[in-house]
């Protein structure tokens, strides 16, 4: 599983990145987590508000700071 956090480096983006790490650790998942700050790449996902959570190339959430719990639910579905 490949998880990407899209964001331009604001505080919410950093928090989402941390929460994602927590969620993956809690669920004992095997995942590669990556922070994407390059605007060109973010644009390719045509996301209109950050932070956004992308799992295996599919945008799962935009513009929201999800809790570790919410992320875990997303990852399992």
């Amino acid at each position, binding site marked *: 599983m490949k998880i990407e956090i899209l964001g331009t480096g604001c505080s919410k983006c950093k928090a989402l990145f941390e929460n994602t790490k927590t969620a993956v650790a809690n669920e004992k998942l095997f995942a590669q987590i990556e922070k994407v700050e390059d605007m060109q790449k973010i*644009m390719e996902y045509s*996301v209109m508000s950050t932070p956004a959570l992308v799992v295996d190339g599919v*945008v799962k959430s935009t513009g*929201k700071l999800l809790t570790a719990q919410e992320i875990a639910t997303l990852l399992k579905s």
Partner: protein
Amino acid sequence: MFSYWEKFVDYLVYNLMGLDKTEHLAQALHFFIFDTIKIFILLIGIIFVVSYLRTWFNLEKVRAYLQGKSEFTGNILASIFGIITPFCTCSAIPLFLGFLQARIPLGVTFSFLISAPLNNEIAIAMLFSLFGWKITAIYIGFGLLVSIIGGFVIGKMKMEKYILLDIQPIDGCCENPSITMNNKERVKEAFSYTMDIFKKIYLYVVLGVAVGAFIHGYIPTDFIAKYTGGDAWYAVPLSVVLGIPMYASAAGVMPLVEVLTSKGMLLGSALSFMMAVTALSLPEAMILKRLLHTKLIATFFLIIGSGIIIIGYIFNTIL
């Protein structure tokens, strides 16, 4: 609305503390306690309402709606849309790019980019709590005018080649899952956003009101009027230049402006100053540098700056 609160502060300062009404300290203290709480309550209330309304807007749909509009109509709609969007790096830049990807003209996109910081909910909430609804309405009205005309002018200048990123147009809309929320979630979301903002700015507000209270209590009116009340031609441009580096502390600057205007500063200069604080920010320019050529950013600043200066003059003349 706040008359009971004022009575309470009267009682607190003049009776409980036993200070004399004519003393500088009593006046300053009264102003500080009364204003801080009043601004806090209004700030939280207004930001909460705006962020709650915001949960009903779907950005993708707004974009699709703007897509087919003719240029001038687009400028007007994008400016109005700028009022309800929050302005921070997380939202404004991706939105800006998202608009361009949808082939929305550059000028229309700029109307949005000017309006978003100028008419942000913090500025509106502060203005409302300090100056009342009339001045707030005038501020928003002129703010819209600047963003509509500014965006239109930039659109006419054909500056598309100054966008540094390679914009890949997208067709269709809304492949991203839009999360539907129930009302309880909306309220929760709005509340957490409000608290975020409040944590960020409450210190500035307290500082601003403290300095304002000092001026209110200790500095004589004619002194302020002498330096800021004159209709010297340079008063407005000077206010604008002074406002540029102050973006982060907009919430702290406004209480100061309130005191200065009550002591004789001309309202036009004051409004220009506040608009410059919110719309022309160096941090914002730094972020935009990643996407746009310096030439375009300079043009953007120049047009907005001129617009704000003109408004200042108009105000000083008519009020």
